[in-house]
């Protein structure tokens, strides 16, 4: 783990790993979406609108996975002070927020024809909207902390603590449909059991793997960018001093 504390070593690995994640990710995601839209039969009740499943579910999973990554990186930063941890957390925030927003948008579009409404304030939808707001707050705080760090302050710890506290929302989102009556249905996939028929489940799982690989590739790309930013800034400062 601490082998990658050397950014040069990490950057060498990231350079070849990034296309290795992005290319198969794009192939799998688009393949599974095409399968879901063109091949899979209609649902017994929802008809063709069931096809939104293949984009909605991977998006919301990754929205939650993104914050889990922020939380784990924050723990590593706070306890072990790994130099790449805060960069990994910040790199996951933007794609996480994008997938969360996509999950909310596709869910809303799906809700109109099936439930009869674009939006309701039930436990699941509200807690997921809060996740988006947490992401926006985290991104703002992280960029403020970077400026503070450049000026010699220690605000990066505050960002990590915020990432950790925000993780409380993740189990709440997961349990919201069990704890409270909600318009959103209870979970379809729990601990190795699924009430989704195999004809829908396989393209869904492949889409989820594809989207996850894309997510990983984007995180690596953003980590490279953030590291390059820090290097450029350090170089500028040296020039200004000398």
């Amino acid at each position: 783990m601490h082998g990658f504390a050397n950014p040069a070593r990490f950057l060498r690995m990231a350079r070849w790993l990034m296309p290795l994640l992005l290319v198969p990710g794009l192939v799998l995601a688009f393949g599974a979406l095409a399968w879901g839209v063109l091949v899979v039969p209609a649902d017994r009740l929802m008809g063709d609108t069931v096809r939104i499943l293949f984009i909605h579910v991977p998006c919301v999973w990754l929205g939650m996975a993104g914050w889990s990554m922020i939380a784990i990186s924050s723990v590593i930063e706070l306890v072990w002070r790994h130099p790449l941890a805060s960069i990994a957390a910040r790199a996951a925030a933007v794609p996480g927020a994008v997938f969360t927003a996509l999950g909310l948008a596709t869910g809303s579009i799906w809700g109109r024809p099936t439930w009869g409404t674009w939006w309701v304030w039930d436990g699941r939808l509200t807690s997921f909207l809060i996740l988006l707001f947490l992401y926006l707050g985290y991104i703002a705080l992280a960029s403020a902390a970077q400026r503070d760090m450049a000026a010699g302050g220690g605000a990066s710890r505050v960002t990590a603590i915020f990432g950790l506290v925000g993780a409380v929302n993740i189990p709440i989102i997961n349990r919201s449909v069990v704890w409270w009556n909600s318009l959103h249905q209870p979970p379809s996939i729990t601990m190795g059991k699924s009430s989704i028929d195999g004809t829908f489940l396989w393209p869904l799982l492949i889409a989820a793997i594809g989207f996850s690989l894309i997510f990983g590739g984007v995180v690596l790309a953003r980590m490279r960018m953030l590291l390059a930013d820090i290097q450029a800034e350090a170089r500028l400062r040296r020039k200004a001093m000398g």
Partner: protein
Amino acid sequence: MSAIKPKHQRLVLLVVALAVLIGAGLLAAYALSTQASYFYVPSDLVAKPPEQGRAVRLGGMVERGSIKTMPDGVTINFMVGDGKARVPVRFRGITPELFVEGSGVVAEGRMEGPTFVADNLLAKHDEKYVPREMKDMSKAQAKAVIAETK
């Protein structure tokens, strides 16, 4: 006695902080358990009826064979049940596509006497996703069809 390494000190501090955080989250969720529900189920509504005329939501299953259209053609009456209690509901308007007997519904409205008068109906989908061709088959039949088409 040797001093604790700073790394371990941070780890202990973090574990304690996380335990407190999770405890606070669980307490908040527990306190919200009654308030954060999106609707009343019929047995709640019968056991602790809200004031007449107060805006509430009622959620449950539309009982099979209970949907009756009134002579005006746009008003429907049906029963919503949860296995323990049942409440008669009146609604005037266009129902969502997934509003069918034996399926879930959330009605927004108020109690008027013993009847729940709904202004709006939302269909509640269950967690099962099944292709249209297989909905009337038994499990064994569906398996045979899947085996055939593979």
